[in-house]
């Protein structure tokens, strides 16, 4: 079930009414109801893979309980290994088996040897990378004694399968989300209203920005050899907005849906294209994944501690693993590598943690310096997206080669209206940069004006929605 469909528009209000009016008598009943609707939500794609979610949940629940009463270090390590092997094993089999086999064969072919090995016809279960990472983080946190393991299996199953964020995040931490399943939830008016605003914003980002960009992006990437450099550049530019609108839109609808059910999910995007360097970009883009890699890969590797060389190694590893997380293709690895290569200079000069505060606070217009910083960061990100979008590495290289020639100066054969629309959207983001989200317009005192803005957005969503496209991140 997609968030941007009539099906979900009916599903969510039904869940809302039953959740608050019928199953609100006992927390346990409410949680069981959430498990049922979450499993139904997932089954709408493919019920065959429900067993995987259940397996992953049960393994981590019992490993957590085992760790709770085990003091012996080796035994605790064994418990952790069981969880890692199960979750990463599922992920490796469904997502990476063919990739590794093919890469292995290609590697041998490079050295002149031929190898016979067969790949498998494997269907990738939707959202597998998201829920395995979420449940894995629970076990690791329990192992590290950062959180206490839960004894409440219903709450744990609901935590893993919670439908708003089950298939594409935000990848929640047990420390934030799990306690919300174990205490009585009260309806909060302002939080629910904010949830609806987020849903509206998310629908706008997905249906208007992402889906309209997708049509042009598909055309340009499919026929890249026939396009001018400027058209190719704008193809990548539109993809940058497609993936942003797509994923940020999904996250906003997820967070909004959770809000009206009384849950607070973590923010996943914070206007990333206003970042002034890559360090800031990664604090604003797919925040739940970036922080996951920070906490469970980067810091265990040593993080910022040790020599510069070690720090650089750690950064490399994190970006490469992050690339691979996105998909079983070398294009994603190279995408990660580009980000690593552009991030490392920031680590060397010590400015990766720079720009923690709002840009040009208190000013309407950005300074020239800020424009340059944002522009440069955006340009790097757009170039890297070419690899992310391309089918293979040679396709991406040819695309970039086609981009950088004299035809880059020619008039692009793309919709000027859409470019203008995206520029206007970015201006609005700039004006709202110090708010929690773009539709936080509580500073407008006039209620009719606020309502007019909401209706305008509803109208735009209805009228200018592009052809429905699947969410890009579902494939991850």
């Amino acid at each position, binding site marked *: 079930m997609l968030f941007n469909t009539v*099906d979900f528009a*009916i599903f969510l209000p039904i869940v809302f009414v039953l959740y*608050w009016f019928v199953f609100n008598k006992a927390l346990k009943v409410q949680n069981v109801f959430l498990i049922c609707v979450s499993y139904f939500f997932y089954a709408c794609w493919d019920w065959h893979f429900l067993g995987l979610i259940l397996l992953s949940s049960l393994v981590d629940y019992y490993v957590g309980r085992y760790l709770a009463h085990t003091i012996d270090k080796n035994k605790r390590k064994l418990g952790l290994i069981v969880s890692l092997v199960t979750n990463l094993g599922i992920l490796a089999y469904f997502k990476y088996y063919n990739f590794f086999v093919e890469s292995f064969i290609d590697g041998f072919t490079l050295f002149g040897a031929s190898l016979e090995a067969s790949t498998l016809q494997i269907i990738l279960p939707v959202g597998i990378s998201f829920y395995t990472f979420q449940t894995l983080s629970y076990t690791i946190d329990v192992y590290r004694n950062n959180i206490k393991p839960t004894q409440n299996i219903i709450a744990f199953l609901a935590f893993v399968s919670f439908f708003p964020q089950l298939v594409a995040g935000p990848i929640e931490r047990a420390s934030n989300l799990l306690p919300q399943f174990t205490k009585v939830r009260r*309806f909060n*008016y302002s939080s629910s209203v904010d949830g609806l605003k987020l849903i509206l914003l998310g629908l706008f980002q997905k249906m208007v920005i992402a889906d309209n960009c997708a049509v042009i992006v598909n055309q340009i990437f499919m026929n890249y050899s026939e396009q001018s450099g400027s058209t190719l550049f704008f193809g990548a530019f539109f993809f940058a907005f497609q993936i942003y609108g797509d994923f940020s839109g999904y996250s906003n609808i997820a967070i909004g849906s959770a809000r009206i059910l009384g849950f607070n999910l973590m923010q996943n995007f914070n206007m990333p294209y206003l970042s002034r360097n890559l360090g800031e970009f990664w604090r604003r883009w797919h925040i739940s994944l970036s922080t996951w890699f920070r906490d469970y890969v980067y810091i265990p590797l040593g993080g910022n501690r040790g020599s510069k060389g070690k720090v650089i190694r750690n950064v490399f590893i994190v970006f490469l693993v992050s690339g691979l997380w996105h998909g079983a293709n070398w294009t994603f690895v190279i995408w990660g590598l580009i980000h690593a290569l552009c991030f490392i200079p920031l680590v060397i000069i010590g400015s990766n943690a720079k720009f923690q505060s709002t840009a040009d606070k208190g000013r309407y217009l950005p300074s020239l310096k800020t424009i340059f910083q944002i522009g440069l960061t955006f340009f790097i990100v757009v170039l890297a997206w070419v690899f992310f979008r391309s089918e293979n590495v040679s396709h991406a290289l040819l695309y970039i080669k086609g981009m950088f020639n004299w035809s880059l100066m020619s008039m692009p054969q793309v919709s000027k209206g859409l470019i203008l629309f995206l520029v206007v959207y970015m201006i609005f983001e700039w004006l709202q940069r110090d708010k929690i989200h773009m539709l936080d317009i509580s500073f407008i005192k006039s209620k009719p004006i606020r309502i007019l803005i909401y*209706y305008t957005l509803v109208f735009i969503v*209805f*009228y200018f*929605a592009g052809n*429905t496209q699947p969410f890009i991140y579902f494939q991850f």
Partner: protein
Amino acid sequence: MKQFLKYTLLFLLPVLVIILLVEIFYRSVPNNYTYKHELIESQKETVETLIFGDSHTFYGLNPKYFSSKTLNMANVSQTLYFDKLLFEKYISEMKNLKHIIIPLEYTTMSQVDNTQEDIWRKYFYAEQMELDVPLITWYDIRKYSLAFTQKFGVTVRYYKEYKKNKTLVGCDDSGWGNTYISAIDSTEIDELAKIISRKHDDATSDFSVNKKRLNSIIETCIAKDIQVILVNMPVSQPYLKLLNQEEVQGIVDLTQELGFQNENVTAVNLLYDTRFQLNDFHDADHLNSKGAKKCSQILNAILEAN
């Protein structure tokens, strides 16, 4: 909570009203589906020749030029899936039926059911042509409401068209699509051919599903002594050249093969027919009224010879 529900419903009220108006619009304004349904219901007992297919036969075969009583049941983007459903629904009631014409084209044989672009059509077939469409599940909301089948922008476009023409019906009382009158501007053909050929390239040559459907129709026709004309409809040469030639040949071969294998099947290949020139086309792949006349007369001569 009550306040939240009240305000949310109040906010959504105009949206719900618009949805209701859209529903009324789709259910009250006649379109090609409702009109063709009326036509076949009123003529099913007298029709001798029935034309199926998509826009190529909808615009390309005019029953006026057939000597037998002919009805054009083709429609824009009508796939073999729906041709078969229509055929099965009416065949037992069509006592006078002697011929059916089915186009086998580049877009026909490898056509996949339920593609995103045309997904909305199945609801109109089910609701307005009263077809039992197995593709639609009982829990699909669009089975019950046509308002959710189209994007709002498309509905507004239909509404403007309705206001302008006072109808959404694009065919005459024989079912022929009569809105493609003019010929294509010859300066635009190459660019248009490029765009349309790309659009039609589905990157698959798997004919198995549709071949099965075709064979099922042919078998029923054998049992009822009905002649089947399988036709490769004419298209403009610039467009034809840009198609995957292997797939084109595969379709032509299949048409001929079915013609050889079945006594009641006649295969007609008009793809390379030089009688069709650029001024017979409305665009890259659709005949205009002049081309439709020519094509209809050719097929009528074949029917008469049979």
